[in-house]
Structures are given as C-alpha cells and as structure tokens.
C-alpha cells in the first residue's frame, strides 16, 4: 500500500460545496463564500489530492441538542425569511435578528458547519486520522440557547463533546480576535476541557474574556484568557502563545486539541484590530501540531475574505507539512487577490499596544493560575518539540525515556517517573475496552492508557511527532478498522 511521504500526517478535510452559497445579507461582514475561496485555492495549489476529502453529513437536530436546547434548535429549524414575522418573540429570545440574521438555508448552513466538526471529531476518535480540518466550523460565539456574533450552532462545542467520549481531557485553543465565549461558557464548570482564548479585550465584542475569568466550580482554573490590545504582531503573538501553550500542555496534559483559527486576527481584517500576517497566524497551527496530539482545526471569524482564504489555505499546507509557493496559482477568484497575487501578506504599520512588559505580566499571572490546577500531574512531558525531531526518532526505542527527552524538557521536569501512573486517569473504566478491537499499538495516544508502556509511547510521540515508523506501522491498522 502506497503512502504519503512519511513525515506527513494523515489529514482529513471536511467540505460541502454548498457552503459558499449561504448569504447572511447585504452588508453583513460574515461571508461563507470565503470557505469556497479557500477550497478553490487548495485545489489550485494541489493540496486537495493529498488529503482525505469528505462531504460531511448534515448534523441532525438530535446531534445539535447534545449541547443546544431543544427549543432553540426547533426554532432554528423552523425560521425562514418568509415566516419571520410569526417568530418575533422567539427571535428576541434567541437573539436572532440583525447581527445573526435569518437567511435562506440558515438551518442547513448550521447543519453543514456542525456536521463537519462532529464528523471530524469522530474521525479522530477512531484514530483514522491525525489532523482533521473543517473551515466551515469554528462558530465559537453560539450559546446553548442563543445565537451570537454571527454564530448560531456551536460546532466546536459539539465536536469537543464528541471528543470527550474518548478523551479524558480536551484542550481548546482560540486565536480568533474575538473571545471564544460560547465555548468557554459551555465548558466553564468542567475540568475535562480547558479553554484557552487569545483575543482583543477592552470595549470589544463579545465583552468577555477578562484575565480574571478562570472558570467556576470544578472548572476553576480551566478557563484561560489572554486579553490583548490592538496591534498584536507576529512576534508579540508568538512570545505569548508559545509559553502559555507549552505550560498548558505541561499542566493540563490533554489527549486531543481543537484549534479555532479565526482569521480576523490577521492584519487588515474588516472587523479585527490585530496585525498578524498569514505566517504568524499559521505559526500557531504549526506549534500546536508539533505536540502530535489528535488535532481538530476549525475556522471562525475572518472578514477580509481574500486574506481569510490565504490564511486557511496556508494553514492547510502547514497541517499537511507541505510547502506551497508564495505566488498564488490561478483560481476561480484570482481577481480577489490583486494587486500582488501573493499568498503571504505584510503587516501594516499600526502601533502595537501590547508592550513586552504587558505581555509578561499577563503571562506570569496565567502561570500562577495554571500552577493552581488541582490535579496537575507533576511531570512535564510536553514542551513544544524542536523542529528537527526526525533525527531523534531513529533509535528512540532503544533509549531510556529520560534520555530521549531533549535537554530543554528534562530541565523542566519536576517529578519522577513514578508519578506518571498516578494521574487522574487512573482507574478510568471502559477506556481499555474501547480499544480492544485494535491490536496493541505502537501508535502513541498520549494519556489514553494508564499503564507505563503507553506512557512511554506517549513520550515517544512528543519527541517524534512526524515519526516515519509510527506512520507506517499505523497505516495497515486503519484498514482493519471497519468503515463507518
């Protein structure tokens, strides 16, 4: 069986060709068309053929009410532009009207967006793919019983709920310029999902995401908010993103990650106020990918659509580990990309109001909070791995675990090996059974198994994210997994 080049991940892409045809209304900044533009760029870059492509199912009301209230979904299903007048009261109640308008095919649009994210989560759960992408998803403002900020159904929450069937802990990271309030709220009181949102804060939609909002009840310390000022540039962003995410990985130790890639944090966004380039934005994808965890990428905001499609195209290439040319290939929407017709964009000269001191203070405060995590396992197993990990992977089986860890990681280790098996995963029932249909795996599944060998695998995984051998052993296994 032929395979993709070994250093690549199996990437699964969810797209429905109808999604670009939904239209929020004249003057509305949210344009689903940007997803089609992205898709078209992917095709013309030749990235499409490298991915497993799915047209996702349409999520049913049953699926959506796993999170949303029955009333709300029933309402979304029945409302149409031509019967709106009968629903005045409910429209107010569910905040559907102007910001979140009623448009033709609204419910179908929600079904496609949610269907993609849920399907992607299932795919990851089945270990049939390492990275799943749904640019039609990422609608992070939707609440349990309320539309908000152009979002009606929260595909992310639905996707994470699906991941939670199989993963004890799921990490959610949000790099949209707006706070990921819908997802944060949904998981505000649980310690099984950590939400980490980087966003503009201060007189800005949606008005949540204060540094001091850290979760409640059992979820206390499991909401992490990074409030930022105007003008964040690539360098500043990375300077806060890397330490926070490394620390989060270290203390929370998720076994799956969802990254909301809202592209309104790019420079020149119609609604945003940051100054990131496509590279800086994509860097986040790259960094998260390095942890080698099951990885779900979703879209989100993004209102200067030519840049949105640039960004998501680039991030698809990052997920695939494929380099693509800066010259844009000819495509159906080529004219949109003038005058330069390049993939990458330059930052503007706007001033960055996030001083290094400010970012440092935020970082330190968040570190304090993260130290409060009650059950945080004492051992660091995941720092952002170095780029060139493949050379290390060669002899990793022979080497003792500690030696396998790069010095940088060893330095940060606090506790001994003994604690590894002492995590809160201990005694989780049913987990082993889940995997009974599979042969014992060389494949690493961080935090899935409580026994030491599995953890060894996990450590291996961190060191050799793009490991050649793991990929090849894994591939045949996929065929033994019955198709859905």
């Amino acid at each position: 069986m032929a395979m993709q080049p070994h250093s690549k991940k199996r990437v699964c892409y969810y797209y429905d060709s109808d999604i670009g045809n939904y239209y929020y209304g004249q003057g509305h900044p949210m344009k689903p068309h940007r997803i089609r533009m992205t898709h078209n760029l992917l095709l013309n870059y030749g990235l499409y053929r490298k991915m497993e492509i799915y047209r996702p199912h349409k999520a049913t009301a049953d699926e959506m009410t796993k999170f949303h209230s029955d009333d709300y979904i029933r309402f979304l299903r029945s409302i149409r532009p031509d019967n709106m007048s009968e629903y005045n009261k409910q429209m107010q109640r569910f905040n559907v009207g102007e910001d979140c308008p009623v448009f033709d095919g609204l419910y179908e649009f929600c079904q496609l967006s949610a269907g993609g994210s849920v399907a992607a989560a299932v795919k990851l759960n089945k270990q049939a793919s390492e990275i799943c992408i749904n640019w039609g998803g990422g609608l992070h403002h939707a609440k349990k019983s309320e539309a908000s900020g152009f979002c009606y159904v929260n595909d992310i929450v639905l996707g994470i709920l699906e991941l939670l069937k199989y993963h004890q802990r799921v990490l959610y990271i949000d790099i949209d310029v707006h706070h990921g309030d819908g997802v944060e709220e949904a998981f505000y009181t649980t310690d099984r999902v950590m939400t980490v949102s980087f966003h503009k804060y201060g007189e800005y939609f949606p008005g949540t995401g204060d540094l001091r909002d850290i979760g409640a009840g059992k979820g206390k310390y499991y909401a992490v908010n990074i409030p930022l000022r105007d003008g964040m540039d690539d360098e500043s962003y990375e300077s806060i993103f890397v330490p926070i995410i490394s620390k989060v990985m270290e203390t929370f130790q998720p076994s799956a990650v969802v990254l909301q890639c809202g592209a309104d944090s790019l420079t020149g966004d119609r609604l945003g106020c940051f100054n990131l380039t496509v590279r800086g934005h994509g860097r986040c994808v790259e960094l998260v990918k390095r942890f080698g965890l099951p990885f779900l990428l979703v879209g989100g905001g993004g209102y200067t659509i030519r840049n949105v499609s640039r960004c998501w195209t680039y991030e698809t290439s990052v997920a695939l580990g494929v380099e693509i040319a800066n010259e844009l290939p000819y495509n159906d929407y080529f004219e949109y990309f003038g005058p330069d017709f390049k993939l990458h964009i330059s930052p503007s000269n706007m001033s960055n109001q996030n001083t290094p001191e400010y970012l440092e203070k935020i970082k330190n405060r968040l570190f304090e909070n993260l130290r409060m995590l009650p059950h945080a396992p004492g051992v660091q197993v995941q720092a952002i791995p170095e780029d060139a990990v493949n050379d290390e992977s060669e002899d990793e089986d022979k080497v003792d675990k500690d030696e396998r860890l790069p010095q940088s990681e060893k330095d940060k280790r606090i506790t001994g090996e003994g604690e590894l098996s002492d995590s809160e995963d201990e005694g989780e029932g049913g987990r082993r059974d889940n995997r009974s249909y599979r042969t014992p795996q060389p494949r690493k599944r961080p935090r899935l198994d409580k026994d030491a060998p599995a953890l060894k695998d996990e450590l291996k995984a961190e060191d050799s994210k793009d490991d050649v051998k793991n990929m090849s052993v894994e591939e045949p296994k996929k065929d033994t997994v019955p198709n859905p």
Partner: protein
Amino acid sequence: MSDCALVANVNEHDASMDVGNDKSLFEPTVDMMVNDFDDERTLDEEEALAAGEQQDPKAELNSLQREGDMPLEELLALYGYDRNMDKPVVEPTPEVVPEETEKPESALQQLYSETTSPEATRCLRSGSRPPSEEEDDYDYSPDEDDWKKTIMVGSDYQAGIPEGLCSYDDALPYENEDKLLWNPSVLDEKVTEDYMKKVCVMNSGTGVEAVPRGKQLRDDEEALFLLQQCGHNVEEALRRRRISAQTPAHASLWSEEECRNFENGLKAHGKDFHLIRQHKVRTRSVGELVQFYYIWKKTERHDIFANKARLEKKKYTLHPGHTDYMDRFLEEQEASIGGVVRPASPSTMMVYAPSPAAQPDPLALGEKEVFSQMNTHTTSSRALSTEDQEPEAGS
C-alpha cells in the same frame, strides 16, 4: 467574531439610554422584527439591545445572588434608570442555578468600590478568581462595565458532559453518512499526478492548446472523485472521463436573459438574493444566485453595471427610493475595485457551475498582461488556466 464597529457604538447607545432616552431602545426592537431597514444602524441597536438583555432583571437577580458581581448597568437600574422596563418582552429564560450565595447588597458596595479596587468584588464571582494581587498589574479603563459581559453559570448555559468515557464501536454516533470524495492513501502520489495530467490534457484537447500553468498541478475534484468511484482504477476512470467529456454540463450556463434579470434584481432589491430569486430569476436557486454573484462581481460586466448605476444615481437623486440599495452596493464596491484582472463575463466561469473546480476561459480575461503571458507560454508561477472553454458572448 463579530462586528467591532457595533460594539464600539454600544457605549454611545448606553449613554443615550442612561439619560432616559429609552424609547430609542424599544423602537429598533419592533423594526427588527420587520427586518426592513438599514443594517448598520440596526446592528448597533441590536448590539445595544443585546447588551441590555444580557443584564435582564431575572438573570441578574439570580446571578447576583450567586455571584455578587453586579454590573454597573443593573446598579443604574436600581437607581431608576432601568432600561429593561422598556422591553419587558425580552426574557432570555434565565433559571440560573444558584450554587453559591452572595449577599446582593455587595453589589451596592461594588458600585462604589469598583473604581478603586475592582478586583475585590470581582473575586467574589463564583469564587472563581484567585483572591490575589490583581491591581498592580492590570490596568482598567474607567468605564469598563459598559461593554463588559459575564460568562453565565448554570444548567442553562453549560454543556452537559456525560460521565466517563464511552466505548467506540463501528456504529457512527449519527445517522447520516459523511461522503468520502477522495482517499489519497490508495494510489501512489505519482500515479495520481499522472492521472490528473492526463485528465488535464483531455480537458484541453478539444480546443485551445494547453497553456503551461506553472509549477502547480491543479486538482480536479470531479476527476478525483471519478477515480475514487472507479475503485482507483486509472484506466477505467480515464475511459469514463472520455465519455463524459463529450457532454459538458452546459445546463448550468447562465443565459444572457438570466444575467440581465439578475442585474435588474440587484438594482431593485440590492443583494437580497431571496427577493431577487422571488421576483427576477426564478430559474435559479438562491444558492446559485450567490455563487453567480461572487463570480459576476469580478467581471467587466459588473463594472459596466456599476458605472451605469452610478450615472443613473446622479440622474435620479430626487427619487431616492430606488437608489437606496444601489448606493449601498456601490459604496461597497468602490473599496474593492482596483485595476485587477477581470474576466469579461461571469458566464464563462459558470460552465460547470456545480463544481468550484471549473476554470474560467483565459481568453475572456480582460487584461493584456495576462493575455501576453499566456501567448508567450511563460512558465510564470502565476499559473494560468488551461481550460479550453469557448469564450461566452455574455458581455
């Protein structure tokens, strides 16, 4: 991901409401139901309204008890500036589960303490904040509570998370199936590429010579799907492709009449594709209209249309009723119009309308630069289409 412009305006609205100009809040609510007025303005109001709703009395009281974290708005309400009195209809069903009880009166204290030590009161929220040194390293804007919102706690807000982990068997957790369109792992990448090159040649075989497209070999999703359907048998896929290539899907090509009707529709209804479909272009779905629009607006045909509309606008400024939408439309366009490459007609790009893979006719491209690149067969990486469709006489 929402309109920051809207949010920026909230404060203005709040200000006006606080002065007692409360009617201004109510009216947009009614308008909103009618949904027939200028978005920008109403979006502002909607946002302001949402700001008000968020602090709706019942929810507030509950959350107050629970958290003792009272936003400024409510306090104003207590002092007789209750904006909610204007819209008693708005009840987003709070039913907050009060888990922790805080003294409501702490809210009063908060009003006064807010400016000096906001953290002191904020810490009370569900005990969810570290009661530590907050002030020193966190700067506050004086009126932060005007825009600030609160994450709600209670069964009406959080997702229900099933206990424990379930076993994953073959059964999908949902009924409808995801359709696999392409699986890259069956064939070697080289084989796939060869196949696509052949398809490419086949596409361009009938007419114009193939144009070098630069480094990238573009993907044809239909061809790949065909290969998938043929069990990844390249020969079979090529054979079927040859047969189907004889009969291109001209059904989805837009006629001149449809184009004209579409443009008239834009004139009459703005970008309300629902109305355009209803009154002008009954032959197409709303989705097709949207798809067409995004191609159309980057063509010469659009430029002609826009220029004409601009002229008409000058002529008929005394009849604003008809130009309202067009003003709007033109304003939006002006920002985006640059001297970029423009196909002459959208029709050529819509030949295989259902497939976004369809290529525009290079001959229809309006700009010389591209044209010359094409003729000299440069291998510019700004790859050009090699499709061989005949130019449409659309414009």
